[in-house]
Each structure stands twice: as structure tokens, then as C-alpha cells.
């Protein structure tokens, strides 16, 4: 093999701590290497052209590029060598940036290590074979997990693009967090007026199948051909017959059921419809509070239901759906603020979360849009907002900024003045983060036009004083202590990964960060892709996001799905296992261990042999290390290829 080696400076990213000229010189002495050079930016157009020219000039049939991580540019350079007429698998990368130049400043040790990595790559390359992809047909349906605003956007865009969409939503209505909001910043337009019609579109779109009150039980398969098991949780109401009239809810005698939609500022009935604009507008029974389901007595709802759709015997149901791509839009949950003892740890009824306040402000909420103190139902006069509760706080394990709390706090301060013109709002803040179109202007309006008192500093303590709450904090700009007698305290609670996000990630086989937010394919260039082909992200499941960003991601994910489905067939990755039929003894161990069922038994002249179905094989190589005969070999990671790297490292 005639190998060409290109050692990249990456500007000064590599060159500053690795002597790339020495690496190239050392590479020229390696077996098989006929050409080696160092280049400024190998990934740039002139850099890539240099590779193409060298291949032609020196008749190279293998290329090593020593530069950044293969996770960054392997695909780029594979296309380059392909452009020069080589098979793209006759290419190897040595990661001398992330694994060498960026993690140490010792130039001698770094150069030495870079030479080793290039040697490993060229030794492996000498064992590489040209590989060719196979084609397989795909199922052009898409699964959207989560019916918040990001999921709704993705679903509608995909459906409008002609795809069949399956949407699975955990709760009994779609709408997500946005449906709970009263108004949205910075326009102060009504949240349900902009979201409501989109929700109706989901329900009425001929291409969308909606499974509300359902969860993902199991995911099998791979890009183009996923098989999803959906658990339709028992609602005890036949949704095909339920008209959403709400008579059952009116008559239900069990009045103390947890109202999650209204953030528990009020109770709901054991049989309930979350809110008037719910999609689907269907009732469900909460078995924890239903007397009939608990004690076998009552049955009022069954008696009053005009369409006779109550079914106390209903069980969870499982449905299988086949799709070709998945968009996960599972959103976020609120941080559990009760860990903050200084804010009362949940003991004072008049300390509430921003989302609870949102329900209070909403005309469709339990107070009908009137701001009332939970303790005595009185109108508050002095309202204190505390920002960064569970955001930017290392001590509670949430060092990140949620990003949208500054904005909704400004909005809530404005709305407070609108609802109660005689009131005074105070905002304790750390910094105002209002990066966005018309965002800074908005927070300024809250301060200047609505007379909100912004105090830069943290609150150290809240304690009751008569029927009020004394809020004590620091004003770090004035260098003084501040005390406010508040009637109501609203905490701007930060966002965290939604409950169960990690469990779903395991089913999807995607990664998540230490906070539980899903990892995108690349922080800059692949914001909605994951490292698992065919699985995309939208909205706050990837990290806290406001509505415009979530919607943008929903559309971006839909564009990716439509792009994926623009072909009728996909090319399979040829880095799959193959069986050497002469060595295979038909023991079947590979068949047992394959997680994808990609290996099947075949009859070969009366003998049992293993056979890999190339389009199903995902290239993990578990079979290769299981095979006692070395008969199954994962292409591009064969025993010989890995051992040649080991030898390149250890024997010199």
C-alpha cells in the first residue's frame, strides 16, 4: 500500500504544542508511507485539494490525516478521498488535537505522542479493505415523543410535508408547558390564543395519529425501520365515545384530586379534563382519588355520562407502531425549589412558583385570572419576585442558567401591574439576561414604564411577619440590606431535565449530559441530531429553551426528517460483521449475543452456519469478540486491524 500522511496545524490549535513538521518527517519512515507533509488547515478547500492532488501525483491508495477528532471531520475527509477516486474506507484519522495538543503543553511529549498516533493509524490502514454500502428501503413515518410546542411544530411540519406522523404524549392533553402560560414575552400576547389553533391542527390533520396519555414502552430497530411499543395508559373512559361534555367532572363527588395542570394551586375532580381547550378534550379518571376504583362504591360518573363511556375495568393497552425516524421533544420540568430552606422550603403558602403564578394570572385558571394569595384569598399589594431559584447555583447542583426566567419575570411584573394597578413589584436578580429580539427593551419597559423595583442581589431569608412575609436580601449595587414586607413571593424556578428523560434516552440509545439533557450530535453544527441515526431532538429536552427557540428546533428537526425521507432507500453503513464460512462452526453464540437479531442461521451444504443480514447489523462487534473461531469479523474493526494498532504502539 502507498500511504500519504497529512499532519494538520489547525492554525495554532495543534502547531502551538505539537511539532507537526517533525511528525510528518517521522511518518515518512513508517512502512508503507510514501508521502508525508504538514498543512495549515487540512479541512479547508486548499487543504482538501492538496490531498486529492497528492493521491493523483503519488498514486496513493491510502490516506492518513492527523488532525482533530474523527467525530469532527472523518466524514469530510472520507468524501475527499472519494473525490480522488479512492474507496472512502482506505482512510484513517489520528486525533492529535482533542487527544494531544489541547490536553497538554509539553511540546516534546506531545510530538512524540502524535507520532505514535500517526503510526497506529497507518498500521491500521495497511489492514483496511475497500467497503461498499448496501441499500435498504425505509418506512416513511415519523414518531414525535412529546406534545409540547416543539413537538407540535415538528409534527405539523412533518405532516404538512406529506409524512405520516405518530405523536405520543404522556399527559391526557397536548400543549405542554406553553398551554399553562397566561401570556408570552416580549409581545404579551395570549399563550393559548397562539398555541390553541396549532393544537387543534394536530387533532384534525389527516396525517397525524395522536396517542395522548400514552408512553413509550419499548423501541427496537434502527434508522428507517424502528418498531415502537406504545403503552396507552388506562383512562377508564372510552375515548372513542367521550364527547368531552364535562358532566362527569361536574357531578364527581371526589373533589380533592391533584391538579397537575394548575400546578396544584387548586384541586380537581377524580374524573377530569385538564382544561377547556384540551386536545383531545376527553375525560380520564385518576384512580388514586376515585372512590369507585378504590372502594367499589360511587359510580356517579357512569350514571351521568350521556354516552355511557365510563369503563371501570379498563386496562393499559399496548400498540405497536412502525416508523423510520423519531423526534424526541420531551421538554423540561421545574426544579424542586423546596430544597431552599431560606425561602421556607415549602412551608409558607404565599411563596409560590412562577408557573403557579402563571396559572393564577390565566383567565382559564382556578382563580379566573384574579391574583389571590393562596393563604387567605386576598389581593396582594407588594409582590416580590426572586430570580435564579435553581439556576446558576452550584450549591444545589444547577450551575447553568435556565435562560428564560429573566424574561418571564419581567412579563409577570408587567402583568401584575395590569391586574392590580395599585400594586408594587420587586425583583431580586443576579444579572438581567435578556438576549433576544426585543427582549432587553421588554425588561426595560418593566422597570421604566411599569415601575418595577429591580434590586440586584440575593434573598437570604423569608419569614412570616403578621399576615405578611418579610423578605430580607442584599442590594449589592447600593451595598445595603433590603427588607420588603411582601404579600406574595413568586420564585423564578429554573428548568431541569424532565422526569424520566434518562430512562427514555436508554430506550432511544442516545446520550445525555450530567443534568439529564439530551446530547446533540455536535454543539454547533448538529443541534437537532443525535449520535443515533434517525433520532432527532427538538425543544427543551436538549437544554432549557424559550418558545421561539423550541419552535425553531421543532421545525429544524422536521426538516431533518423530511431530508432523511427524501430518498426511497438509505445506504447502510458497510462497517458491519461478515462471517468467514470456512471458519464458522455453527455454534450459534453470535446469534445469541447480537442485540439486533442481525445474525441468522443458514444451511450451507447441510451444515449450520451463521449469516449476517447487513442492513440490520449496526456494527457493534459484540459477535466478533464472542466468536470462539474468529470467524465473524466486524469490517473496519477486525481483530487484525485492532491488533495492528496495539502492535504499532507496544513494539516500538
Amino acid at each position, binding site marked *: 500500500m502507498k500511504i500519504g500522511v497529512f499532519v494538520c496545524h489547525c492554525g495554532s490549535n495543534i502547531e502551538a504544542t505539537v511539532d507537526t513538521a517533525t511528525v510528518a518527517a517521522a511518518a515518512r519512515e513508517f512502512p508503507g508511507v510514501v508521502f508525508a507533509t504538514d498543512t495549515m488547515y487540512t479541512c479547508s478547500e486548499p487543504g482538501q485539494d492538496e490531498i486529492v492532488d497528492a493521491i493523483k501525483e503519488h498514486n496513493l491508495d491510502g490516506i492518513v490525516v492527523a488532525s482533530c477528532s474523527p*467525530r469532527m471531520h472523518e466524514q469530510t475527509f472520507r468524501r475527499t478521498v472519494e473525490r480522488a477516486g479512492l474507496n472512502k474506507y482506505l482512510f484513517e484519522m489520528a486525533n492529535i488535537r482533542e487527544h494531544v495538543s489541547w490536553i*497538554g503543553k509539553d511540546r516534546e511529549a506531545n510530538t*512524540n505522542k502524535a507520532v505514535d498516533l500517526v503510526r497506529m493509524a497507518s498500521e491500521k490502514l495497511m489492514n483496511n479493505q475497500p467497503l461498499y454500502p448496501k441499500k435498504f428501503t425505509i418506512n416513511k413515518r415519523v414518531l414525535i415523543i412529546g406534545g409540547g410546542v416543539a413537538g407540535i411544530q415538528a409534527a405539523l411540519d412533518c405532516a404538512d410535508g406529506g409524512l405520516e406522523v405518530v405523536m405520543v404524549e404522556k399527559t391526557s392533553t397536548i400543549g405542554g408547558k406553553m398551554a399553562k402560560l397566561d401570556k408570552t414575552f416580549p409581545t404579551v400576547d395570549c399563550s393559548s390564543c397562539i398555541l390553541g389553533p396549532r393544537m387543534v391542527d394536530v387533532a384534525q390533520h389527516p396525517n397525524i395519529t395522536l396517542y395522548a396519555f400514552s408512553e413509550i414502552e419499548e423501541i427496537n430497530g434502527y434508522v428507517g425501520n424502528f418498531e415502537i411499543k406504545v403503552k396507552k395508559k388506562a383512562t377508564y373512559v372510552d375515548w372513542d365515545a367521550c364527547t368531552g361534555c364535562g358532566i362527569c367532572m361536574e357531578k364527581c363527588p371526589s373533589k380533592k384530586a391533584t391538579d397537575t395542570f394548575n400546578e396544584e394551586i387548586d384541586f380537581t375532580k377524580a374524573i377530569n379534563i385538564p382544561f377547556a381547550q384540551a386536545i383531545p378534550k376527553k375525560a380520564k379518571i385518576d384512580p388514586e382519588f376515585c372512590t369507585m376504583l378504590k372502594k367499589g362504591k360511587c359510580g356517579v360518573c357512569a350514571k351521568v355520562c350521556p354516552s355511557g363511556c365510563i369503563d371501570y375495568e379498563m386496562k393499559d393497552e399496548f400498540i405497536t407502531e412502525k416508523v423510520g425516524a423519531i423526534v424526541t421533544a420531551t421538554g423540561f420540568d421545574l426544579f424542586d425549589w423546596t430544597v431552599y430552606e431560606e425561602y421556607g422550603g415549602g412551608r409558607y403558602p404565599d411563596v409560590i412558583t412562577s408557573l403557579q403564578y402563571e396559572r393564577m394570572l390565566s383567565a382559564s385558571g382556578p382563580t379566573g385570572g384574579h391574583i389571590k394569595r393562596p393563604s387567605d384569598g386576598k389581593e396582594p399589594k407588594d409582590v416580590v419576585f426572586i430570580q435564579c431559584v435553581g439556576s446558576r447555583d452550584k450549591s444545589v447542583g444547577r450551575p447553568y442558567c435556565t435562560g428564560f426566567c429573566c424574561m418571564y419575570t419581567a412579563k409577570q411584573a408587567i402583568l401584575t401591574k395590569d391586574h392590580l394597578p395599585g400594586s408594587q413589584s420587586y425583583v431580586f436578580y443576579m444579572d438581567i439576561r435578556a438576549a433576544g429580539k426585543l427582549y432587553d427593551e421588554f425588561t426595560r419597559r418593566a422597570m421604566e414604564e411599569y415601575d418595577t423595583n429591580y434590586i440586584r442581589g440575593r434573598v437570604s431569608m423569608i419569614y412570616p411577619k403578621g399576615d405578611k412575609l418579610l423578605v430580607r436580601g442584599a442590594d449589592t449595587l447600593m451595598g445595603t440590606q433590603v427588607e420588603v414586607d411582601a404579600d406574595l413571593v413568586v420564585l423564578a424556578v429554573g428548568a431541569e431535565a424532565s422526569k424520566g428523560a434518562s430512562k427514555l434516552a436508554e430506550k432511544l440509545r442516545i446520550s445525555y449530559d450530567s443534568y439529564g439533557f439530551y446530547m446533540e450530535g455536535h454543539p454547533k453544527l448538529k443541534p437537532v441530531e443525535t449520535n443515533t441515526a434517525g433520532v432527532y431532538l427538538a425543544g427543551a429536552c436538549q437544554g432549557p429553551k424559550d418558545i421561539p427557540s423550541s419552535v425553531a428546533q421543532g421545525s429544524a428537526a422536521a426538516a431533518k426528517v423530511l431530508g432523511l425521507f427524501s430518498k426511497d432507500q438509505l445506504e447502510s453503513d458497510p462497517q458491519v460483521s461478515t462471517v468467514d464460512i470456512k471458519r464458522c462452526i455453527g455454534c450459534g453464540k453470535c446469534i445469541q449475543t447480537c*442485540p439486533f437479531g442481525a445474525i441468522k442461521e443458514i444451511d450451507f451444504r447441510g451444515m449450520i452456519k451463521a449469516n449476517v443480514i447487513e442492513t440490520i447489523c449496526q456494527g457493534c462487534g459484540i459477535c466478533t469478540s464472542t466468536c470462539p473461531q474468529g470467524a465473524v469479523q466486524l469490517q473496519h474493526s477486525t481483530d487484525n486491524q485492532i491488533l495492528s494498532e496495539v502492535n504499532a*504502539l507496544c*513494539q516500538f
Partner: protein
Amino acid sequence: MPVLEGKELRIVGFLCNWCSYGGADTAGVGRFNQPTDLRIIKVPCSGRIDPLFIVKALMNGADGVLVSGCHPRDCHYSEGNFYARRRLEIMQKFLPILGYEPGRFEYTWVSASEGQRWQQVVTEFTDQIHKLGPAPKIVGPEASDTLSLMQAALK
């Protein structure tokens, strides 16, 4: 290249592509300084690692071997790291029988987001190997015969 005498030892890492290799990349992007001894071999999955790779590395002169994969239940291929864990656990018990001190081989789990954890793993493992010193080498006039016999036994 030979190891830098008195400065470095030969440490081989086998990392899965999806989690730990990504974690090592994340550590690089974050500029988390690490010792320079480790050389990383990328494999698709920790379940792809044949324990013989580890033996061969040690036999051929590595002073330490580090394996890292996705956290259990977080495998890109659902269950590859479970197979890896069984094999590597046995391997760890078996190496002392072959004459390699315990501690020359370790395995761990690092996700693609855990750059800082990767820095810590590499630093601690490198320290551990430096404390053990260079691995005993097969030397003497019959060294090459012995090695080829051992190689043949492992085929």
C-alpha cells in the same frame, strides 16, 4: 516512537466510540490537562473488546491498559457494555495469575459529556501505573522465542 525515558510509560486505552471516546474529546475541547502517556485505540463498542487485546498489549510491552465504555444501561448498542463488564471483570481477576500486578489493567465508564471525569480517570490511572513502574519485560537471549511461543498460544 520509544517512550520518553524516565518521563512516560506506555499506557494503552481502548475506548468505545460513542461515550468514552467522545468524553475524551470533550476533555480536549474543554482543555482539561492530562498526562501524555496514554494512547487511545477507538473501538465501536466496549463489547467489541476481546480480552486478548489486553493480554497482547501487556505482553508486547505496555505498562498499563485502560478500558472505558458507556455507563451500564446507556450503551449505544443497548447491551454491549454488559458483555464487556463480564469479560473485563474476569480478565482483571485473571491477569495476576499471568504475572501482571493488579492495577496494571482497569476498566471504567465515562459518558460523552463527562470531560472532567475523563481527565480524572486518566490522571489517576497514569499515577497508578507510575507508582507500579515499568512492567517486567521478557528479556534475555530467548526472549523472542518465548514471545513467539506465547503469541502462538494465544492464536
